[in-house]
């Protein structure tokens, strides 16, 4: 055996060829890698292609199956549910806006809206909670606190210096901004940047409350972090039998 043994190199190899068409020069090719790799590229390639078109979310997973089976009413859940509950662990880096992206002036005020790029993770529960984790792991908390702001600007309010559109936030993270926001362009992989974008958006209530997770297993943080921001603190919790 073993396939698991072989895959990685094949993977690396074909991953490389995907991006630049260059082949990673292989030291002492291990035969097993060869054997198991030949099947891969085709399948991989078209899967990748599909993902490129952003079809992945709809195409994979049980949704079409469900469509056939469940009643009309459930189709609503389907739309929400599938999008929200998708667990697409092998998202390829989605098309990056940064390369072709130029912001007119890096100063407060209206910012040119970047078109044609959407956050592949919009409204996805897993991505938002991953973004939440990364927000801590990459120490965004250090400056932005838990969205409340500190050295850096607060993220919970509606005031966005560089635009609150997902792609603007993406650009802000990737390119950095004057007065302290570093450029994470080649530090954070695009997938994770998008996850951060999804979380940051959830902080300002721009994400569906149904997709964001509730209170964390940590010391109390600001209310907006909870699934019911508008709930007055003194109102009775609805308790059911």
């Amino acid at each position, binding site marked *: 055996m073993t396939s*698991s043994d072989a895959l990685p190199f094949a993977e690396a190899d074909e991953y490389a060829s995907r991006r630049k068409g260059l082949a990673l020069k292989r030291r002492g090719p291990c035969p097993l890698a060869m054997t198991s790799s030949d099947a891969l590229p085709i399948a991989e390639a078209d899967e990748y292609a599909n993902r490129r078109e952003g079809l992945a979310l709809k195409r994979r997973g049980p949704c079409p199956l469900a469509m056939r089976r469940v009643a009309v009413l*459930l189709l609503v859940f389907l739309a929400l549910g599938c999008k929200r*509950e998708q667990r697409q662990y092998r998202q390829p880096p989605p098309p990056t806006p940064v390369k072709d992206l130029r912001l007119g002036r890096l100063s407060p005020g209206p910012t040119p809206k970047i078109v044609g790029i959407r956050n592949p993770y919009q409204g996805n529960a897993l991505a938002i909670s991953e973004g939440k984790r990364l927000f801590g792991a990459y120490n965004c908390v250090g400056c932005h606190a838990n969205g409340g702001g500190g050295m850096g600007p607060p993220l919970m309010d509606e005031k966005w210096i560089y635009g609150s559109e997902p792609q603007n936030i993406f650009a802000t993270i990737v390119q950095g901004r004057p007065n302290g926001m570093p450029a994470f362009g080649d530090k954070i992989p695009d997938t994770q940047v998008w996850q951060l974008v999804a979380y940051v958006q959830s902080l300002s209530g721009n994400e569906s409350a149904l997709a964001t997770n509730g*209170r964390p297993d940590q010391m109390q943080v600001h209310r907006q972090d*909870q699934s019911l921001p508008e*709930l007055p603190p003194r109102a009775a919790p*609805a308790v059911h039998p």
Partner: protein
Amino acid sequence: MNELEERALLEKTWANESGPFAWFRQVDHRSIGRRFLFTAFVWFACGGVLAALMRIQLARPNNAFLSADRYDQIFTLHGITMMFLFGVPVMEALAVYVLPLMLGTRALAFPRANAYAYYLFLFAGIMVYTALLLGMAPDTGWFSYVPLASPMFGPGKRVDIWAELVNFTEISALVVAIEVVVTILKQRAPGMSIHRMPLYVWSMLVTAMMILFAMPSVMVASNFIGLDRLVGTHLFNPAEGGDVLLWQHLFWFFGHPEVYIIFIPGLGIVSSITAVFCRRPVFGYTAMVLSLVATAFMGFGLWVHHMFATGLPQSGESFFTAASMMIAIPSGVQIFCWIATIWLGRPSYRPPFLFVLGFLAIFVIGGLTGVMVASVPLDLQLHDTFFVVAHFHYVLIGGAVFPLLGGIFYWFPKMTGRLMNERLGHLSFWLTFVGFNLTFFPMHKLGLAGMPRRVYTYLPETGWTTLNVLSTIGAGILSLGMLVYFGNALWSMRRGRAAGSNPWDADTLEWSTSSPPPVYNFQHLPVVTSREPLWHEPDQAPIVTGLAPDKREVLITRVLDAAPDHRYTYPHPTVWPFASAVITGMMLVAGLFTPWAFAIGMALLAIFLTGWFWPSNPKKEGDA
């Protein structure tokens, strides 16, 4: 009024009216009981398919048949299905059908509530399997431990669906439990004093009592997690004074009795079948009853043995080890009594009895491995491994499913008027018996060889492949056996040999009325003078007269001596239970998304329940 007129009148009074929506209005225990059974077996089949998928995935190492995420949803839903959607409901369903007949009464107590419970149960399964099709089924295990199920580590609505499913099924189970208790205590045929109750009735009484005290605990737990996820309470948040072990205590205080709730009815079925097919009463009636009651009490005293690996104080561990081992005593006594019955009796090897023998061979192994996992040191190695998987499948499939298959075969003629095919019965028994052992026996070894539960794959170097392959082959045979069994049932429903009122020459009252029974069960309620009424000149036994044939009247008797006390009139068919169940279902589903759903839902429900309880008109009023 002569016999025929009275029968005609009863027919008219108890008949299920026809018409487009009649199906949603029916409340009689036979039609609801049949639906209940059928639905439960549908969920059982779904759970079985999930199990097969898991076995395929584990048949070879590093298998890519199922993704990790999908596998987690599947093993979770398999557990949920077998525990919440099959184990408890199917036993209650059988009781709903059989009990009133066995007790010699015309209806189950609170027939409308019974219908309500059924619809809730139906909706529960629909909800959770829809979730599976949508790829958003619960994926944190049927035990749904926090913090994995807490809002931070369980994103999305998956765990909330688990919580609502628990509410659905537990409300349903609790309602039926109350009906069962009341029916057994207050509606027994005159003369069936407490010490003349059939052992099956005893087992259902004990089970229903356990349900009343165990299930609230898990409902509390599921609502706690719901609150944590929905309105941000901190009950399970260690950083704010919450506690994650609290969850395990609440869950297992229900979770352990749950096991007994599932197989005690099985023990009752075994007693019924053993007596009939050994042509003699079960040996040691009193010992049997006391064992059942003792099991029920002890069942609440050993939930902590699911938590040995969390590290508890020595003394506590010793106590729960002792308790867990001692519960083997009542089970042992019952085993000995059945063997004594067989020893003294005249066994006839017909399929129901074969399933009982299969039960004995399997269940005893489950009990003995249970003694092993009760020991703290051994449990530290065995806990959360495939050994435990093997153990509780020996207990639950051995202790509940085999008796159940025997029981269905046994009561099938009463329900349908036709006998199941015996040759196919033998075939299905041997297939399931061999398949079962081939599937689960290797898992003991797998666990000792270090294979943990709930893994979606494993490495070839671990050396677990061979045993897993064996197990998967066994699963195939087991599924085949199930197919033969249920194929046989469906076929026999139409083509089976016609059964008389008492094809097995059995001893209990349900066999004294025709098969299938008339809508009023008994024209004259029987009067019981011994533990085996039909084995002691049933024709000379006295009968009850004077129940009004123009009202749905039942005889209420006294708790201990079952002396006639008063008459009670049950309500007519109505759509309110169905409507209320729909509202409840909508409330619980909407409750996935907002807590306010419960405020609004309860208000709506109040209106519907009022409609339910409001007497229809002075002549045929009554509520349930």
